[in-house]
């Protein structure tokens, strides 16, 4: 129901609004007052606010022409994701502390801004964005300082530290569109939110009854942004253990239905090597591939150049690049 105001639709004039208000009707519901006028108003309002059915063939054509697949820069992750992040979808990275979620977000941002020459919007809620690490990754890809600076300029950072700022930021994107919000070179191809759980977990649970609704508002906004602007949305989340000690993504059952693809990141517990940068990624939820696929990858792969990556004779690297 919406508040009635003059000019909302052709049949709704000032006198009609005043008359309705006198009858104590401030919002649009049914009465038998000037039946024809109300019927006309209803037709117009319905036409303005309904969704239209689309045929499957049109939808498929639309998808083929507008969806892009963005590589993450890491061949093992690309294999898990069925060649990369799809635009129009929400992908989630879940993992414990130090499992590499932020590093994967950096890698994706650098790959899109340098390799694909497109803009990236990075919403940072943990203070974990380190521009010097982004520069390090870019320096491994190219020695040209101008190219590095250009790539850095294509990454727009929005620091938000609480749920209301996050909602305000996402509404801002939706209202003014991502192009104006980013004002960088190239069109925006990805929105990265690191991390969603940091702003939502303080309001979930206990005697607060608004937490769930705010969480679902964030979910709705992210999905709308992904669909309307044709961008890939990547979010990060924490993990918890369920009754059997199995890892699962945080923020509860309701949130678990929101992302289309979910990847769980874990450290490898190997005796003897403590400071290793190898991580395992498990596909926990996907609409395109069988679940529970596992891949190992090295967090340092984004910080190394192509020759170093494929020239390495380490056993781990050979296993990953073997043809399947």
């Amino acid at each position, binding site marked *: 129901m919406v508040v009635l105001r003059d000019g909302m639709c052709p049949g709704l004039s000032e006198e009609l609004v005043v008359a309705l208000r006198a009858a104590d009707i401030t919002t649009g519901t049914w009465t038998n007052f000037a039946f024809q006028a109300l019927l006309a108003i209803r037709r117009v309002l319905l036409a303005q606010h309904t969704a239209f059915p689309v045929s499957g063939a049109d939808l498929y054509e639309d998808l083929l022409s507008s969806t892009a697949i963005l590589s993450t820069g890491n061949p093992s992750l690309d294999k898990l994701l069925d060649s990369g992040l799809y635009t129009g979808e929400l992908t989630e990275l879940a993992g414990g502390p130090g499992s590499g979620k932020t590093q994967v977000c950096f890698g994706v941002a650098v790959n899109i801004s340098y390799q694909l020459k497109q803009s990236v919007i990075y919403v940072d809620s943990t203070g974990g964005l380190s521009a010097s690490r982004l520069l390090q990754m870019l320096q491994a890809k190219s020695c040209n300082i101008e190219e590095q600076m250009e790539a850095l300029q294509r990454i727009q950072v929005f620091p938000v530290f609480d749920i209301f700022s996050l909602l305000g930021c996402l509404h801002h994107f939706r209202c003014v569109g991502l192009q104006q919000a980013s004002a960088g070179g190239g069109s925006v191809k990805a929105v990265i939110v690191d991390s969603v759980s940091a702003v939502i977990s303080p309001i979930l649970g206990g005697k607060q009854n608004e937490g769930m609704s705010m969480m679902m508002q964030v979910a709705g906004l992210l999905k709308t942004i992904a669909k309307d602007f044709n961008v890939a949305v990547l979010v990060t989340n*924490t993990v918890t253990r369920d009754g059997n000690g199995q890892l699962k993504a945080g923020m509860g059952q309701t949130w678990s239905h929101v992302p289309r693809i979910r990847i769980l990141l874990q450290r490898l517990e190997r005796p003897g090597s403590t400071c290793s940068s190898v991580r395992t990624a498990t596909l926990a939820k996907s609409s395109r591939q069988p679940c529970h696929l596992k891949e190992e990858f090295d967090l340092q792969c984004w910080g190394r150049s192509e020759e170093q990556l494929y020239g390495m004779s380490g056993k781990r690297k050979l296993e990953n690049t073997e043809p399947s």
Partner: protein
Amino acid sequence: MQRDVSSYAIAPSVKVKLLNAGFLSAADLCDLRPLQLSKEACISQEEAVEVLQAVRCEPGQERAAAGRLTALELLGREQELGTIVTFCSALDMALGGGMPVGKTTEVCGAPGVGKTQLCIQLSVDVQIPACFGGLGGKSLYIDTEGSFLVQRAVDLAQAAVEHCGLLAEDSEQQEALKGFTVETILSNLFLVRCHDYVELLAETYLLADFLAQHPGVRLVVIDSIAFSFRHDFEDLSQRTRLLNGLAQRLIQMATNHNVAVILTNQMTTKIWSGQSKLVPALGESWGHAATQRLILHWDGTHRLASLYKSPSQREATVPYQITGQGFRDAPPSDQPKTSDDPSVRQSGSLSKRPRTEEDQSTRT
């Protein structure tokens, strides 16, 4: 586009009344005066004024967009902010120059490994004048355990002043040295004593005002966060919520006021599939709170610092020692033996080290 009324920072009871009166989105509230709104929605005039301020029609979304910057600008800002040295060169190298300003760092460790010593050292080091490579800032020390000893701070301050005195070469440095004495160091160190978690939370709410009044503060130390939250807390999920909210406020303050925030945490034993491990306390979700995590642990009789989580540095383990003058590098002859010596436990395992009589006497 219309933004839902429920997504604004308004009190829940007021939101319910607004929704019942039919105001679903910001556009509905645009043209109303406070008197009209309070009559329509049956709320008081003050509440109506607050609602209209929160929902003001030139989007408050501009506020969110105003904080934005490109990664290039962020790079320049990071390089300007600098780092706080710890006087242990191996640790400084592992951290990329020292403790980063504008981020939160968590220091975890078993009792007696040197967390408080590191905190006091950093409170002194942040005051090193800019011409010596320091930040020339003040520090705020929030003490919850009562482990801050002024005599120890005096020892560390004297050692730092002597160290800078040896380094001073040109006239600018000599001039700066006159302003860098034990008295000035102690007067630029603000100390707050909190006795329970309520006082600690209240202090973090007041921190924003304090930092606005003292813009020279570059370091905030909370030693320790675990102490007040670990006992007397029946509702663990409430503890998690409070801690997460606290972490967000701290990182917001670190970013907005350009301070380094150091938090100290204790260790707890986790029993899991038949093994026991020492892990940082306060739960797994707290692990995400700090931007960087440093774990201090023992290896035989040697102290090691491991960088466990960092957005920009590789993981590394470095040795250090605590001397009469404070936190320093471990002497090279005392390096821990290699892992094929069976008598030494691997540096990776954080199992509890039995305390011997010798260690008790060598603790400073």
